[in-house]
Every structure is written in structure tokens, then in C-alpha cells.
């Protein structure tokens, strides 16, 4: 069975959708962070797949993915740091409690 481009893209799309869904529904900040990672990784898959299937002679997509992974790592680190701060402040990582500022 040949692997077509869609066989990669559809899972990646599902991943992205899961990420979005997870972000919107999860209550725990860490879980939300994981959802975000899902989304970013889905995008990375996109890049890689496009590179592999559409532009096989080039590496731009791959490089892009590398950088994207790096950035995602930085983001995660930063987010974790902030979550820790929050935890220190309110002793909880429940997102429902982080809505003091509104309207």
C-alpha cells in the first residue's frame, strides 16, 4: 500500500483539532500545555510531509520544523515557569481559577 500525502495530513489535522479541543476543554494548565504541544507538532508534521511529498529535492521544510521544535521547546519552558509561579500564588493549576481579571 502506497502512503499518500493525505494519510499523513489527515492524522496531522486530527492532531491539530485534538489540540484545539483539548485547549478549550481541559481544566489543568499542564494538560492545556500538552494540547498546545499537540497543535505545534501537528504543524511540524505538515511541514515535514509537504517537504517530503511535494518538494522532495529540498530541505526547507525540514529546517523549518527543526526551528519550530526549538521554539516550541522554549515556549513550553516559559509556560511551565509561569505555571509554577501561578501554582505558588494560588496553590492550584486549575484554569477556572485564573479569571480574576475580566470584562
Amino acid at each position: 500500500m502506497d502512503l499518500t500525502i493525505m494519510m499523513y495530513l489527515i492524522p496531522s489535522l486530527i492532531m491539530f483539532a485534538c489540540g484545539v479541543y483539548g485547549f478549550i476543554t481541559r481544566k489543568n494548565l499542564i494538560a492545556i500545555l500538552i494540547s498546545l504541544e499537540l497543535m505545534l507538532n501537528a504543524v511540524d508534521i505538515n511541514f515535514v510531509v509537504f517537504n517530503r511529498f511535494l518538494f522532495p529535492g529540498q530541505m526547507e521544510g525540514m529546517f523549518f520544523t527543526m526551528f519550530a521544535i526549538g521554539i516550541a521547546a522554549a515556549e513550553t519552558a516559559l509556560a511551565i515557569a509561569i505555571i509554577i509561579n501561578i501554582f505558588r500564588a494560588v496553590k492550584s493549576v486549575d484554569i477556572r481559577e485564573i479569571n480574576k481579571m475580566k470584562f
Partner: protein
Amino acid sequence: MDYSQFLTMGSELMLLVVFLIVFLFDTFGGAKAREYTSPLALICFSVMTVAMWLLPTNGGEAFSGMYYTSGIITVIKTILNLGVILVILQSVKWIDSEEAKIRRGEFYELMMVTLFGMYFMISARHFLLFIIGLECASLPLAAMVAFNKNQYESHEAAVKYIFTAVFSSAILLLGLSFVYALSGTGSLYFSDLATQVASGENSMLLVLAIAFVIAGFGFKLSLVPFHLWTADTYQGAPTSVTAYLSVISKGSASFAFLVVLAQVFGAAYSQVWEWMLYGLIIITITIGNLFAIRQKNMKRFMAFSSVSQAGYIMLGIISANVIGMTSMVFYILVYIFSNLGAFAVISAIENKTGKIGMDDYNGLHKTNPWLSFAMTLAMFSLAGIPPFAGFFSKILIFNGALESGSVALYVLVLIALINTIISLYYYLLVVKAMWISPEEPVVGEFRSSCYERLGMWLCIAGIVGLGIVSWFYTYIYDASMLDATTFFANLI
């Protein structure tokens, strides 16, 4: 590899040097010496700004075209520098306070790193460099937002900021992956992509890609409906960071937005993103205004005000012509001075008394006439009242938007104009609180620090002078004229 290509990146290099000076000084300087971090940062930065402006701006490329600079790009960078100087001036008092002084150096370093990112974001002509610049500009900001370690609001603001930021970059990257798919050649150079867009294939994916890219930028520019983090973050962040977020971050993103839209998606202008922006501008201005009129917290108030201001800035992009670009850059310049003028007063009062409610400004003129005066000018300028600079920037940006002569844009400008009345209303509320409210003043008489005063005077000078002295606009116009073809060649 030709190392001389680094010379085209003069501004980035200088910034790097300043960053290093501050970093090294902060790292290796003694506790006594660190007291002077702020003046040092300020002086180095000012010197660098002047140097950037004075040194010949020989435009050019680097890294085989991934990096590009020209007159107008140097201008916008210089403008951002001016803003940073003003932000530094008003943050000195806060950062030197007992609570924050230990992290003094980090603040300046983070600020310069983000600025560095913005420089690259503006100068990038390849999406890889662009994404790096963008993330470099937005991630350290999260740390800055969370700077007030002992305040819960600061953390909440940071959470909201970082999560939305990551989400937005995911969306942006998704959009970019579509673009990549469409690129045809597999190249992420702007110019290559533009050719592919111009060929007009795969329109559905393109539309979605553009929508996602705009949404990604919408986060940085706080366009409605991507703006929802803005108010909370602005409110919770330290005032200086809010000021920084509201002008510098927004100003650089607007210009980069113009670059991406015009240079990459230029061929899809009249078909696609003109209408996307059209809708976004209308709701951005309107929703921003509608929220602003109810706000009682000055920082939150300024947040919504900046949301609606972003809508006005977008008018310079939607016109997609030289006058529009000039007016947009000019608008950013004026906006920096006006908005920072307001923040200067807000932070001066907050630093002294910790009060940031609009009601705390009641009767301010009795105790602090100069602060009231500065705030009044800033408000008038933001509302677009002559002879202050805001009027000029506003009328010129409207003027640019009308060049194409399409009735739709006339309608858009009319809507924007009607919205200026609402905005005038809430800006006047502040003026009213200061001058008209009969209540006894809440804020006692005090004398601001000399940095704050210098900052305020600079802002006042800018507010009064930028419009009346037409040199600024002409200068920007000349610079953008030289670069007009690069920017708008692909436009349809």
C-alpha cells in the same frame, strides 16, 4: 561566506552590542555599580538610536536575501527605538524600586532581546527568519509580563499571554504550512511565494492560509476577535511592560504585517485580504471602543483604546500604497508618543501612590497640574484632536485609505470616523475626571522623578511637534517612496 553582509545588519549589530554591554555590566558589575544599570542602558540605547539614524542607511540584503533592509525599514526601527527610550525613562523609577531592583538588568536585557526579535521580524524576507524573529519578539515578553513576582495579577496576565501566544503561533504556523504547500518551489522566500500566489492556483487553501496568517498577526496586533488576551494582560502586567506591549510590540507587528501581506500575498489583495482586513478593521475599532467606554482601570482602559487604535493602524495597510504605508509608519510614531505620554502619567502616579483607577484621577489638576496637562495632551492626541500630532496621523491615514477611490473604502473610513466620536467620548472621560469632576483629589501633590519628567516632556514635545513639523512625515514619505516598488510591486 561573505562576512561583509553583516554590515547591512548595522542596527541589529548595534543592538546586540548594547545588549552585551548591559548584560556584561549587569552580570559582572558590583552591587553598587548596578545602581547605574538604568542610566547606562538608557545612554547606550540613546547613543545607538542616534547612531542608527545618523549612519548612512545603505539598504541591502544579507543571507542570500533572507534579511533585507532599506531606508523605510531603518526608519521604523528608529521609531521603535524612540519608543523604547521613552519606555525606559518611565520604567526607571519602578525597576529601581526595592521590590524589582534585583532583576533590573534582566528587564533591560529581555526588552532588548524582544526588540532584536522585532528587528528581524521587520527585516525578514524568508519565513524561517520571520518566525524566529516573531517568537523572539513575543516569548520574552511573557517573562516581562510576569515580572512582578509578588503580584498575582502579573502571573495571571502572563498565563493568558503565553497561552494565547503559543496558540497563535500554532495557528500562524499552520497557515505557513499551507503556504509552504502552495509554494510550488518549496522555497519560503517571500519573493518566491509571491510569484506562486500571483499565479492564482489553489485559491481555497490560499484563503485559509491567509486567514490563519492574519489570525496569527491578529494576536500581536490585538485585532478583534484575536484581542481577548489584551485587556487582561495589559491590566496585570507591570505598567512599563504594558506600555512596551501596547506600542513597540504593536508597532513592529503592524509593519511586519504590511510586509507579509504586501510582499507575499500582494497578488491576493483585492480578492482576499482587503476584505478580511475590511471586516477586521470594522469590528476591531468598534469592539475596542465599545469596551473602552466602560473601563474604570486606566491600564485596562488603555488596553481597549490600543485595540481600537490597532484598527486605525490597519487602515494604513488596507490602502496598500505608499501614502498608506507612510501614514501607517507616521501613525505608529505618533501613537508611540501619545500612548507613552499617557502611560508616563499612569506609571508616574502608580509608582507614587499605587493608584490606577480612573476615579483616582478626579480633581488631579488641583494637586498635579503638569501631570494633568500631559495626560490631557496625550488623550487629545489619541483622540485625534488638532493641533496635536494624533490629528495629523489620523487624517493622513484616512487620506491614504481613500486613494483607490472605491466606495467601500469610503464607507470604511466613515465607520472609522464615526468610531472616533466614541473614542473621543472615553478619552474625554479621563480629561473630565482630571479637570471637571468636583470631587476632592485622591492623589496628593508629588514631584515625579527626573526620568519620568524627562519622559513626559519628550512625549509632550512629540505630541505637539510631530504634526506641526511636517518634516517627519516628509522624511518617512521620501524613505518609503524609494522602496515603493519592493513593497507594492506584487499588488493586484
